[in-house]
């Protein structure tokens, strides 16, 4: 027996058991599937995989995915900062309702989210006839995909910032104002630096989700190859056509982007300056 063990410390066998459970779970549920994706993609060698990514349809899908992310992420930043600012720094009626509303995309099935847009903007939808009259295409076109992606990724930045800003309160802003700083100056010199790390995490997560969203996008996309196919949709099409190498090659690219995102997040966490202890 080790008599020097701290009274509240678990015995070694318990520690080992818990670690084994966690390890086994991670390996079977997360790591094994990830590895298999890359394994399947490279089954016929690297050239075949690269060729699958290099086809015209695949390139169009990658481009559309990047465009979608490039539009929805900035939108999310603006909305997320505004919403969390309002919630953390103002008192107004309906605040609790707004917080709940922001969580809605988390609780609603993405398919339902897609259907909502079809119902509103589709040919038979509320604005359908008007949109057709003015030759504006939303459903089965890029705007629909962007809208659906924005809906689904809506909570990421706000969720990250609200608790952070609530914890920080308004003291520093008041101090800045009392020393004569303008509203804009206060935001740039005081608020923005205080939330930049939280904002960055939110953006990274939002970006990962924007590139990977399947359900909502699938409903509004129409699956037109080379036009309205995003990467996740392209994976499905290839898979259904028994082009396994192609499907897994594109899937591997998606996985790779996700891993890069997470590595970036970890690096940023480690690189946080000493002025900001605590947090995450």
């Amino acid at each position, binding site marked *: 027996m080790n008599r020097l063990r701290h009274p509240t410390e678990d015995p070694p066998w318990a520690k080992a058991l818990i670690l084994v459970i966690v390890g086994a779970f991670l390996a079977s549920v997360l790591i094994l599937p990830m590895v298999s994706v890359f394994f399947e993609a490279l089954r016929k060698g690297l050239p075949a995989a690269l060729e699958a990514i290099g086809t015209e349809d695949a390139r169009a899908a990658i481009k559309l995915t990047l465009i979608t992310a490039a539009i929805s992420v900035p939108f999310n930043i603006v909305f997320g900062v505004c919403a969390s600012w309002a919630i953390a720094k103002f008192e107004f009626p309906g605040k609790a309702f707004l917080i709940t509303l922001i969580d809605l995309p988390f609780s609603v099935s993405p398919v339902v989210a897609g259907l909502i847009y079809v119902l509103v903007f589709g040919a038979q939808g509320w604005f359908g006839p008007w949109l057709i009259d003015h030759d504006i295409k939303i459903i089965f076109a890029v705007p629909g995909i962007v809208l659906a992606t924005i809906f689904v990724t809506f909570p990421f930045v706000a969720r990250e910032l609200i608790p952070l800003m609530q914890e920080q309160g308004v*003291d*520093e802003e008041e101090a800045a104002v009392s*020393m004569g700083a303008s509203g804009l100056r206060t935001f740039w010199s005081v608020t923005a630096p205080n939330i930049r790390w939280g904002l960055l995490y939110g953006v990274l997560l939002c970006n990962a989700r924007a590139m990977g969203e399947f359900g909502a996008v699938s409903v509004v996309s129409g699956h037109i190859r080379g036009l309205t196919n995003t990467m996740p949709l392209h994976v499905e099409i290839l898979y259904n056509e028994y082009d396994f190498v192609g499907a897994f090659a594109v899937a591997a690219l998606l996985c790779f982007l996700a891993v890069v995102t997470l590595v970036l997040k970890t690096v940023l966490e480690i690189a946080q300056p000493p002025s900001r202890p605590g947090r995450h």
Partner: protein
Amino acid sequence: MTISIRSVEKTFGRYPALNSVSLEIADGELLALLGPSGSGKTTLLRVIAGLEFPDNGQVLYGDQDMTYAGAAERRVGFVFQQYALFRHMTVAKNVAFGLDVRKGAAKPSKSEITQRVDELLRLVELGELGKRYPAQLSGGQRQRVALARALAVNPSVLLLDEPFGALDATVRKSLRKELRRIHDATGVTTIFVTHDQEEALELADRVAILNQGVIEQVGTPQEIHDNPVGAFVAGFVGESNRLEGEVKAGRFRIGDLQFDASGAVDGPAVAYVRPHELVLSQGGGEGTFGLVANHIAPQGAVARIDGTTAGGLRLEAAFARQAVADLRPGARLDLSVGRAYVFPA
């Protein structure tokens, strides 16, 4: 800068935080706003600072109406309760902030700012810590940074919200002296909010007592302590025995106790008697009563006695140590009331 507050009113929802408050603060004065929590003292400070606008009334800086002027225009130095230092800036950057945000001709040059920051950090005795971040400082050091930052803009008035509230007792004591020293060195009109009467009485030139959004009394610490104008001030400031009895023909009576209350109207009344105003009485004349000592606690030059009268009233008394050197618990003292503050109940 002279500050005049004229009939200021402020309501939060239905709850009146300030109810027609008027107050004059003389140039170079060190004034304490003292009151229990919820008395409106912080609201008053924020109204003076321009962080809160009153519903009614006026705030004057000198003879200039600043009621609705922004905080920038007033040139105030504000020290927040939790200091509100900018956590991502170094100490030097924090102190320089008020100068950095100035625009155009009003903005000092870089070297001027550096010089001013050095000067202020030396004033608050933090000369070496300019490159640190707030998270790397102790509570007392943060307080000093906040003070230096507030002074950087050469404020017309320095405002402090519970400046020592978050510090432990020893640091608090030394920083109190520090604030007095800095006030005397800069001569800036200073207003601070506190709920700690000891702090207010020790530090301030004058004390304003607030209760439920109303100023009960303004005066020097001595006036406040020795001549309370109302029951609230008498009970809130200093220690006292609170007695609920009746005034009849100029004398206050409660049980076997009675003493002079000339000037008070007949009827139910509340009397406040400070422990040191219970005096040893040899004569045994009118007003003399017996107190059995239950507990005797020495405290510096004073012995504090917790006792009970024959009628069962519990009283606290304080005597010079040598006067009651031989007293043991259970002994009986003959006392009379030297001075009491009597107010109609």
